Every structure is written in structure tokens, then in C-alpha cells.
């Protein structure tokens, strides 16, 4: 009989940290980086490898977390690290995992579970690299985690809008002007929902925010333990791109969740589970008005009352009209409509 099942490497079993005091002390992303003060993405890098531990290979696509993080001779990475092209986080994860698997399977390398994590920015991941990430999430026999750190712009190249930049934000490619107040009129992609809905054999997709560090690390650990290709979307306040006082990074992360703009959830084997304040919203707690979040940031300083209302209405829709609130935007036909249609 010909072989039909595929061989998959074992994964590391990374139990969740039960509280902040149980988190390991070792750091695998240390001094040497040159990110801005208050950069949440740098914190995400640190927490990500703290969660994964030392037997990890990290691949990073072009962007702030490459350029500002790996100046020759001052690398902060304690674990092996390699750059990948801007749109290639998916391919980097897949190629690294495939190389390890081939060598271990053929006895050319000691067999052991090695975590493979590829990170990308919103530009590299949700715009340019979307196809490659999507492909990787269909290769179920290769274990890897793709982590998208979303600072909502092409930050490294001077803050240009990406497909993940919020509606109306002022970026260097979307400056407000006398004739046009709003240049960027597109609504942000629903990246985690898209990845979860579109890749039936990807077993784990989650959203995280470093304002909730233990939860974030545990989601990384879960993704690496469950195996196959997995995906995490992290929302990262960026003081330079969002134009706010660096000391507000954590607070803005919290507000993004409390306003319902960015939901915290995971989809494991198709089951949606909400986390933290997002769960509270699902269970009935009132969302904070988005203006509390938007008006703390210079990139929305040109917003009029009308813009704020439009923004609020769009966020409301994700909660009130989506089949799975804030996760999947489909709506069922309502019963009376359906009855009419079949007549």
C-alpha cells in the first residue's frame, strides 16, 4: 500500500503561564535594538520569544522590527534569527519548517521539536505577503507560527498607509488637505477573521495585544503547541505613526479593545473563544465610544464630528450585524426575507 498520510514533526508542549509570576525570567530578545520609545512592537518581539523559549528559529520580514532591531553587531536576538523579504513571512516559515522536517526525517539532523516563528508587519503581511501566508496556512504538515505585528502603517518607510491603516488616518501617503480632508477612505482588513475562515486546516488563529502580556504569551504558546501552520494578529500602538505620547502605548492598546475596535479572541479547531474585555463586551458590557481612542492620536486630529460618527457606525456594525460579532462579517438572511425569496 502506498503511503497516504503525511509525516509531521512533533511540537514542543508549552503549557500556559499561570499568571505573571509564573512567567520564565529568561529573555531571548534583549538589548541592542533601536526602536522608538514606547514601541509596542518591540515589546511584542520580546514577549513572543519569551513565550517560545530558546529552541526557536525566528524569521522576520522587512519593516521596523527588522531595520530597527538588527543593526549589524548589535543584534538583540538571542535565538537564531534571519531576515526574510517583505512579502515572505509565509514562505520563510514554510521553507524553514520544510528544511528542518526533511533533515530530521532523513536522519541528517538530530530530531527534536524546534519552534519556527515568522513575523511580519501589516504592510508585509496583510498587503504584500497575504498570498504567501495564505498558502502556508494550507500546508498542514509543517509546524510554524506567523505573527503579524500590526502598527497600522508602513512604519519603517515613514508611515505610509497600508490595507490595515484605519479609515481616515493621516499618514504620509494620506495627508489631509484643503480640498480633501480624508484621502484614505478604505476600511481596514479583517485579517484574523479572514485567516481563520479561509483556511480550514489551520488549527489556531488568535488576536493579541501586548497590553495583556500573559494572555498574549499564552496564545503564542498554544499556537506553537497545537502544531501545523498557525496565525496570530497583534495590534501594536506605534507612537511615531499614530502620533501620541509614548507613555500612552499600553493605554491605547486597552482602549482599542474596550471600544470594540479590536477584539481579542482565538479560533481553535473552528471554535471561537473571546478573551478579557472583549468577552465582557460579548456578554453585555457597554463598549467605550471610539472617539475616546481616536482623539488621543494625532493621526485622527483632522476628524470632524461626522468622521467620528461614521467610524463609530462602522464599528457598531461589526458587533451588531456580524454573524459572529467582530470576527466573521457574514449575515444570515432573515426568516421573512428567506420565505419571500423562495416563493
Amino acid at each position, binding site marked *: 500500500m502506498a503511503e497516504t498520510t503525511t509525516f509531521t514533526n512533533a511540537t514542543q508542549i508549552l503549557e500556559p503561564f499561570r499568571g505573571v509570576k509564573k512567567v520564565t525570567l529568561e529573555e531571548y530578545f534583549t538589548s541592542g535594538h533601536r526602536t522608538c520609545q514606547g514601541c509596542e512592537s518591540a515589546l511584542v518581539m520580546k514577549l513572543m520569544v519569551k513565550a517560545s523559549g530558546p529552541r526557536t528559529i525566528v524569521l522576520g520580514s522587512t519593516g521596523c522590527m527588522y531595520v530597527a532591531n*538588527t543593526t*549589524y553587531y548589535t543584534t538583540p536576538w538571542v535565538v537564531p534569527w534571519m531576515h526574510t*523579504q517583505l512579502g*515572505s513571512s509565509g514562505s520563510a516559515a514554510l521553507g524553514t519548517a*520544510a*528544511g528542518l522536517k526533511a*533533515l530530521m526525517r532523513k536522519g541528517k*539532523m538530530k530530531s527534536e521539536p524546534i519552534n519556527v516563528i515568522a513575523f511580519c508587519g501589516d504592510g508585509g503581511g496583510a498587503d504584500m505577503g497575504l*498570498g*504567501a501566508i495564505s498558502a502556508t496556512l494550507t500546508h498542514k504538515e509543517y509546524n510554524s507560527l506567523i505573527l503579524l505585528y500590526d502598527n497600522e502603517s508602513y512604519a519603517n518607510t515613514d508611515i505610509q498607509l497600508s490595507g490595515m491603516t484605519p479609515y481616515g488616518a493621516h499618514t504620509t501617503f494620506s495627508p489631509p488637505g484643503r480640498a480633501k480632508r480624508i484621502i484614505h477612505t478604505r476600511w481596514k482588513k479583517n485579517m484574523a477573521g479572514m485567516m481563520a475562515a479561509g483556511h480550514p486546516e489551520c488549527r489556531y488563529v488568535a488576536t493579541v495585544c501586548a497590553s495583556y502580556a500573559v494572555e498574549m504569551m499564552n496564545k503564542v504558546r498554544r499556537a506553537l503547541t497545537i502544531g501545523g501552520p498557525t496565525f496570530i494578529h497583534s495590534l501594536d500602538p506605534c507612537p511615531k505613526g499614530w502620533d501620541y505620547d509614548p507613555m500612552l502605548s499600553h493605554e491605547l492598546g486597552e482602549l482599542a479593545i474596550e471600544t470594540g475596535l479590536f477584539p481579542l479572541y482565538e479560533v481553535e479547531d473552528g471554535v471561537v473563544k473571546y478573551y478579557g474585555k472583549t468577552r465582557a463586551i460579548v456578554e453585555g458590557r457597554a463598549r467605550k465610544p471610539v472617539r475616546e481612542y481616536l482623539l488621543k492620536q494625532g493621526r485622527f486630529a483632522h476628524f470632524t464630528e461626522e468622521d467620528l460618527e461614521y467610524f463609530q457606525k462602522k464599528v457598531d456594525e461589526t458587533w451588531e450585524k456580524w454573524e459572529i460579532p467582530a470576527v466573521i462579517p457574514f449575515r444570515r438572511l432573515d426568516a421573512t426575507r428567506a420565505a419571500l425569496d423562495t416563493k
Partner: protein
Amino acid sequence: MAVATKATPAATDDKELLISGSEAVAEALVLADLDVVTAYPIRPYDTVMQAIAKKIANGELVAEYIVAEGEHSQFEIVKHASTVGARVFCGSSGVGWMYAMECLVVTPPLRVPMVALVGNRALDDPGAFGVEHNDALVVRDVGWLLCWIDTSQEALDTTLIAYRVAEDRRVFLPLAISADGAFLTHSQALTMVPPKEKVDRFLPRYDRGDLLLHPDNPITVAPQANEDWVIEIRRQNNEAMKRAYTVIEEAYADFRRVFGRGPENPWFEEYMTDDAEIILVGMGTISLPIKVAIREMRAKGKKVGLVRLRWFRPFPTDRLVAALSKARALGIIDRDYSFGSPFGSGVVANEIRAALYNAERRPPLLSFICGLGGREVTLEDVYKATDMCYGAAKSGKSDATTHWLGVRE
């Protein structure tokens, strides 16, 4: 690193198969115990991936076989697999190769010794499947080793040599094997396939050494170097390319010892050049019509020879100059174009002009462009080129034009 090998008698334990150039490459990949291969469809190179897929399905080769979602990923996946120590293979044609370009240009500085097959194809638009060499030639400046093959046997042998050369730590650069679309990728010929034991004596395991990306060797690869270091890194690539001259010579010598076949001169094939007044130069399967034409012309008393270039990077400057400068005139036939270049010539002609610049003796040189888009190169084309070369030999002068052969005017 020189690999110790014993002299082997003529290859009696080889098996003989009737296979195409692409299939011959696949045979070599099995023998090389390939670890990771990525595929994406584009004609004509994709026949090699069809052949590999079949070998994997039949259990002849154990490798990770990944069908990518585009050439950019196809090349990026093997790039990363190579950095963790896997022997990898990839390939493309025409615009597919161009689509991967970002990933191609980073492999030399990363010192990724991958081997790729380029099934040469016109860069359509306009739609064209036929051969042109412009696809592979675009990597000529960035640190890829680059060679052209002519037969199925050469396809198999060169693939084994390719891994040996690319993975030699003195070189550690990517290598592209160019095969003319259709004329070689799809044409079958009897090919000797050696046994694995012999290949193991010739080709050592791929060893990334201190460049291995692994938790036991926690390096940072491709950091931001900027003006502080980039020029030194480019210089290292240049030195590696220079060292490839010796490594290629050694590899071919060793190949002959182990397998009992293969050329004395790795760099180019010389056909009837000993007494040649006119030497024509070309790359790839264009050699066939040229050789036939040469035999016809010699029957009529014209002393014509052919130099078929195998290696384009590194460029065999000294040996080529020695071989060419004895002729009375040279005719360089490019199956590529370089619009706006000096004299509007093709890439090969201008490389040879440059190589000859310091030569003691510089024969008149005529430049021809022929066979673009896979158009057949006819005997008439070759006769015409040869006659013009005789004219130049008589006048002792090169001309400043590039002659397009077999084209509607």
C-alpha cells in the same frame, strides 16, 4: 575542499535511459539526495518538476515537495530551507524567473548555494513559449553562477557538478543551469545515469557549518549592515566568484576521474576550431544547426569552427581569449538582446568584446542576433553569418552594426 577519489574505469555500471533534459536533471536530483524542492507551473522548465513529482510519488526520492503559490514564494521557500541545512532545488522560465527576482538577488549575499534550472523562455508579452536567453542573463551581475547546457547527458552531469561547486565552502553561491526551452527541456536523448555509490564519491553532503541557522548556532542572518559593511560583503561575494574558477576546474577533473566522462575544458566546447579561420560563438542548443552547417561548409573547403560557451559566470575570460584570438574573424551569435547596448549587440557579443580588449591579438568581431522567441536557427542563417565573417577577415575590420538573422525586414 578537494574530495579524494580513486580513478574509476569507463562507466560500465551506468544505466542508459532515453530521457529529456528535464528528466535528466530529475535523475541527478535523486542521485544528489535532494531534501526540499518547490514547484510552480510555467513552460518549459516545469517538466523537471513533473519528473521530480513522479519520482517522489514512486518513492525513488524522499524530499519535501512543495507546490508554491507563485515563483516569489517558490524561491523564498528553498532559500530558507537551505539556511537550515537542506539541499534544495528550484527553477523557472521567462517571466516566472522575473517574478522571483527579489528572492534571486538576495541569495548570493546570504551565501545560499541553491541550484536552479532555468528553462530559457522569451519574456512575454507578447505571448511566446520559445527560447531566449534574457531570462537567465538578468542574474549575471548579482552573484549567481550561470551556465548553459546542450544535451540531456550534460544536464545530468552538470546538475551533479552544480551542487559540488555551489556548496563548496570556497564558493557558497547559488547556481543556475540554463537549458533552452523545448530544444533541450523536452527533447529526449540516450543518457548514462550513474549509480548512487559513484555520486556519493563525487558529491559530499551539504554542510553549512557556522552559517547554519539552528538553535545550537544562534546567529543573526542578514542584519542591517548599511554603508558600514555592505561594500565588504559585496567584496566577499566577488572573491567567492573568483574562487569559483578553481573550484569548477577541480570539480570537472574529479568528475572525469569518478565517472569516466566529461570535458577536459569545463568552460566551453570547441568544435573544429583547431585550424578554423572563422570561429562562431554561441550558447546552448544553437550548437546543433551551427555544427551541421560547419560540416557542410568544411566539405566546401571553408575552415569554420564553433565555440559553445558553457559557463557565463564566472566568465572564462583568459581561456576564451586564448581560444578565440587565433581566428581570422569571430561571429558571435546571441539568442538574447540588450537594447541600447554598445553597438546594439547581444549580451554575449559585448562580453566577448570586453574580454578581448586587453588581448594581444583582436580578430575582427561581428555580432549577430538570431533565433529569438524560439525561432529556428537555420543552416542558411549560419552560412550568411559565416560569409560576413569572411568579409571581415578579408578587410581586417569589425563593423559597428549588429546583424539580425532570419528576421522579416
